[in-house]
């Protein structure tokens, strides 16, 4: 199958999955709660208001018509109105979106770079102290409650050492850089605002390291396994037999092939990071979508929660599609398989 056919097929699948995602959010918001109208207006509303609300929400119609109405709304960018802020959920999420993107990208960069390095070290120095240390680090990584890690980091680096700021994206006295992308680091670089750049990087360190740390371990273990597998292959043995230095074999020949499976994991890791952002943003008062949704919970702001769920799932699906499309470029062997 050639590349354009593969892309077309993948895009077709994307539409189906996204439809499926809307079906799930529809079921969760319209069918799972005993009475969505009551969830919206609260327990104390009288029967008459409730009936009017049900009618206004279209809840007296058959379920499949409700779903079509829901889809129709989504196509027009209608994610409902937030109960807490009384503003359209889509606008709210869009305004918090760049902060979440900035945080997850930094966390990703940290997790991927250090994760690959650690995986590489433990594969090349297999069964040594480095390898065992990485293994223990990996187990600790997947066992740490992210919300607790964030609090401990705050205690240590903010309160006791005073090295890093503990909340927000910038010092309160600094003006945000000119809005271009919404990512403060990028915007302040473009506009040459060095004070904002320094402050925004300092504010990113604690939340992104905490968020990335949990994923780092997974990536390191995967790179290790993949590297060990590649090092056993015939072409590596041939290269060794030909007297090519080991370091050259590892970095020139093995690493490139060993990293291919890692790309898939990076796509999946994004999902974990977007989920983790809910906790990290809450702890570091990071004004992103995750903090927005947690703030909505105490108000039982259901439209906000479901809008967030839909947006995050869509972003996650899109990222994984990009990763899938990149795959045949990285690994020519894959082309025929799809």
């Amino acid at each position, binding site marked *: 199958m050639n590349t354009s056919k593969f892309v077309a097929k993948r895009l077709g699948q994307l539409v*189906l*999955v996204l439809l*499926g*995602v809307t*079906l*799930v*959010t529809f079921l*969760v*918001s319209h069918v*799972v*709660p005993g009475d969505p109208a009551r969830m919206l207006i609260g327990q104390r509303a009288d029967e008459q208001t409730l009936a009017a609300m049900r009618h206004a929400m279209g809840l007296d119609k058959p379920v499949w018509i409700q779903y079509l109405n829901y889809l129709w709304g989504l196509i027009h960018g209608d994610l409902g109105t937030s109960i807490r802020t009384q503003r359209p959920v889509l606008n709210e999420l869009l305004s918090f979106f760049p902060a979440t993107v900035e945080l997850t990208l930094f966390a990703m960069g940290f997790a991927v770079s250090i994760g690959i390095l650690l995986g590489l070290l433990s594969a090349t120095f297999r*069964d040594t102290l480095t390898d065992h240390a990485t293994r*223990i680090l990996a*187990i*600790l990584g*997947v*066992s*740490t*409650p*992210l*919300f*607790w890690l964030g*609090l*401990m980091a*705050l*205690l240590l680096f903010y*309160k006791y050492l005073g090295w890093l700021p503990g909340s927000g994206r910038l010092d309160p006295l600094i003006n945000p850089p000119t809005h271009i992308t919404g990512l403060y680091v990028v915007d302040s670089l473009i506009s040459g605002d060095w004070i904002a750049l320094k402050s925004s990087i300092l504010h990113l360190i604690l939340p992104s390291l905490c968020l990335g740390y949990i994923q780092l371990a997974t990536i390191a273990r995967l790179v290790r396994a993949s590297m060990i597998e590649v090092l056993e292959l015939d072409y590596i043995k041939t290269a060794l037999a030909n007297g090519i230095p080991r370091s050259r074999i590892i970095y020139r020949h093995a690493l490139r092939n060993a990293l291919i499976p890692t790309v898939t994991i990076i796509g999946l890791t994004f*999902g*974990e990071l*977007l*989920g*983790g952002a*809910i*906790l990290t943003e*809450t*702890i570091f008062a990071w004004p992103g979508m995750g903090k927005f*949704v*947690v703030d909505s*919970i*105490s108000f*039982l702001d*259901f439209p906000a*929660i*479901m809008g*967030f*769920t839909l947006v*995050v*799932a869509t972003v*996650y*699906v899109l990222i994984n599609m990009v990763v899938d499309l990149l795959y045949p470029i990285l690994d020519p062997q894959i082309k025929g398989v799809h």
Partner: protein
Amino acid sequence: MELKYYRYFAKQYPLTVVGTLIILIIGLVALVAPLISPHDPLQLHLADRLLPPGHTYILGTDEMGRDLFSRIIYGSRLSLAAGVGIVSIAGIFGTVLGSVSGFLGGKTDLIIMRLMDIMLAFPSLVLALALSAALGPNFRNSILAVAVVKIPVYVRLVRGQTLSVKEKHFVKAAQTFGASKVWIISRHIIPNCLAPVMVQATLGIGEAILIAAALSFIGLGAQPPAAEWGAMVSMGRTYLLDQWWYATFPGIAIFITVVGFNLFGDGVRDLLDPRFRH
């Protein structure tokens, strides 16, 4: 003879032994919680609010003067229940769906598997959050929500296993004798899929505890004043900078418990799956 075997095992798999010990100790603590707690976990001591760790209250007290140590002891019951409950529910439903999907094939298989793909399009914590918000915020619903989110993992696993088991001679023989599909699935397919399901479930307990605690932390799981570790960290967060102990100790409890289950799960997998043996 037996002792020798254990010693060999402990030397070969020290981390597994550590994990097993941690689980045993926490299980025991949960079992005898009323006997070993120095105080009632819900009893208010308003004169002793937010006391640091000390003589009367080993790990300090919370904003209502409740004893943190006793609350952490009782919290083990909720976290163990959450972890085991989640993987049990997800494992049972996943096994049934996966074996039916793999054995029947065709349209049933297609529909079930596409549904699972769609569920996997959501990050776990995000779907669990939406579901437990829809069900209503309480401990039982948060466990249900996480269990539903984890079902696809087991469906995929069991389906794959079923595809290979259903080609075996004993299944073919049963079919020739006219055994019903329900009989074959329940008597032949599922029993032959159980080992990998058990491994997966053991490996999944740690993560299940973490997600359940995270839901409690953001206010969707156990509600105050329940002595639940995630909810305790959440309350302690308010007092973090002045009363460090409040958020710190319940978090350590979660951490140690999850480390225990992950070490144990890794060991079980290594033992049963020769590919992972060193």
